């Protein structure tokens, strides 16, 4: 959790933490557009230890879960509900490499445009050729898609490694994620395990 800012708790007027008041334990008003890294008090980076995410998530959820506010005032119950939803979402973004990558590159974990960003013509042409070849020789596409997905993941890793070293930028990320999503359609990309 980021360190307590100089904000007063709405309930006890002591200096509050960001999510929960350090003095009275009341949940504080949740931010309108939460940053998943900030919410869990983690430094924004792609190469992230998933146990750190889980630890931060559990520590905060323990304090903020609606079950802790059963019988409390409606306003506290409401804030605890909103916070816990934010924590669940933050964990979902940070535990999934694709969502995490998209968030770092675009500031949003979801695909922004309906249907996703436009894929470039060379990529689509290649896919078209593959599909034609699949019709003649079924089964040919799966290993190719798998190899391509693996190379895209390696490219993403390299992009983020450079970025975390203070070089390069992430403008290609969204397109590469869209390609991965397209390749997912062949259902051959092995699920990422953490």
């Amino acid at each position, binding site marked *: 959790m980021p360190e307590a800012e100089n904000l007063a708790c709405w309930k006890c007027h002591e200096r509050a933490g960001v999510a929960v008041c350090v003095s009275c334990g009341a949940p504080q008003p949740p931010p309108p557009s939460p940053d998943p890294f900030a919410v869990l008090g983690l430094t924004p980076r792609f190469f992230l230890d998933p146990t750190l995410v889980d630890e931060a998530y559990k520590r905060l959820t323990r304090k903020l879960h609606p079950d802790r506010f*059963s*019988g409390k005032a409606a306003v506290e119950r409401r804030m605890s*509900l909103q916070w816990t939803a934010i924590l669940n979402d933050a964990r979902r973004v940070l535990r999934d490499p694709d969502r995490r990558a998209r968030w770092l590159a675009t500031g949003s974990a979801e695909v922004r445009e309906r249907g996703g960003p436009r894929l470039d013509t060379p990529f689509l042409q290649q896919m078209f050729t593959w599909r034609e070849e699949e019709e003649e020789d079924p089964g040919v596409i799966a290993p190719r898609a798998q190899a391509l997905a693996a190379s895209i993941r390696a490219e993403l890793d390299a992009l983020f490694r450079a970025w975390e070293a203070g070089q390069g930028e992430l403008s290609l990320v969204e397109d590469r994620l869209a390609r991965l999503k397209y390749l997912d359609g062949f259902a051959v990309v092995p699920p990422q395990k953490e």
Partner: protein
Amino acid sequence: MAANIGIDLGTTHSLVAVVIGGKARCLLDETGDPLVPSAVRYAPDGVVVGRDARDRASEFTGSTFTSVKRFMGRAPQDCSSDAALFRYEMDPDDERVVRLIARQGELVRTVTPVEVSSEILKVLRARAVEVLFGEPGGAVITVPAYFDDAQRQATRDAARLAGLEVLRLLNEPTAAAIAYGLDTRGSGRFVVYDLGGGTFDVSILELDGDVFQVLATAGDTHLGGDDFDQALAEFVRTQLGLSELDDATHRGLLLAAEAAKRRLSELDVTEIRLGDAVVSVTRSQFEALIMPVLQRTSAACRQALADAKLGRDGIDAVVLVGGSTRTPLVRRHVEELFGRAPYCDLNPDEVVALGAAMQADILTGNSSLADDLLLLDVIPLSLGLEVMGGVVERFIPRCSTIPVSASQTFTTHVDGQTAVDLHVLQGDRELAKDNRSLGRFVLRGLPPLPAGVPRVKVSFLVDADGILQVSAREEHTGIEARIDVKPSYGLTEEEIEQMLEDAIEHAETDVDDRMLIEARVEAEGILAAVQKATSVDSGLLQGDEASQIRAVIADLQAAMDEGNRRKIQDLSHALDAVTAPFAQRRIERDLSLALTGRDANTVAIELGIPGAARV
């Protein structure tokens, strides 16, 4: 402080449990039975709930309802086959709410499944009142994990009608997991296979220290022991070469099939009688009949494993829940599915209610059981919106940890448009028409702007009970758009309010007699408990408490003889109040005794805590 209770509102039977002296226990009736059959009969002189209603169902076919949980929160058109199966008469004119018609002699009454369930809940509440010496604080009520939003809402409504404050709706397998987890103090990943009377759930949970995390859940809200009974009854009918059975015979046959099913858990062969005819059924015949039902559970188990991204090797234990898991074939089937013998040390009928009581105790915030226990449950089915072409766009995927929120931005298609229609769906099918319609929301009060300019952000929030809340805001103007929620199926807020009003009016006019009986029964319970406690623990009485209590008891007995309901109620409360400090002293002593390491049950029996003493 009043204790919180846990309720298992089941298809076949229901239970209420409470944590007393650090231990969860089910509350028993006067014969020592924790189970209240979920059967309700509407008689001209009142409502009969429980064993009598169940046992005489074939005598009062037109006015008795069992397995009403199958109808909760469902659309009339989805219920017609169940209604036919149970031979219930349904109001054919209502397309939105299931209305069952009870007929007995002169009496014709139309009731909703919510009202029928509330009668069962009232009986459970009364049982708790008797044991706790007063109203319970709040209730945790269990629902099948696979219940959708409408089914959950209906359960909440039933509790409200029964005068219960619902602290939390808890998924049944999760409740069982709490009881199991606190029982074994184990950790790892485990499966809860819950086959009840009418519902099937499978949940995969991860227990890590004091965090219970549900990883995935799947199931079928129309699959259970009822189907075994139906299959067996159908078998007997064909064996006897009968074509159509009248309602009474059908009901009688179902009861006989249910009893035969239980016998076949122990015996290799049994007989079912129908009038003068006798049909003999072997266990292997029965097993062949129910195999198709069990195969339906396998698909759900495989889906849950896939959603949890686990193979069966990743599972550390399998727990069986629900009375139907007593059938030996069910156990063998589960063992085959997961490759390991299931854990069945806990009573499969009671474990859900016990877990609910534990969660209810934890929600008090000063639980003696597990203060830090954190329960993270999931939503069973995806939520989505209907978009162009009747396709569903999902905004919350199934098995997301709840509470969970999502938002979508909408705009207008026509200049000056001030309202947007949204259709919210629950389910995992591609086409809108194959999913469950939760409701249509109309966003009104948008500023009249050119098409495409307004940006309405609609926020969806699924709370810890798995119930959806919707809000909306126009982003340029900050106007909070008003949302008219029209539930597709189920009761509206107004209808619930009306039912509550009716219940009160009803109580004040026609049912005085019944109220008197209830007041008497309640008073008798309190009297007996107080008399026992004061004689066992006379040493804990202080000052002139003994004479004060005696005086109120005398007045109360006089009022009971006189038959004055108000007086009985007032004096019951007075007796409650005058014994409160004494009761507090007993609880404190109970706690210190329990802390010395003696079995809480022994302590409770010594203390004469009602309910506990009968365990």
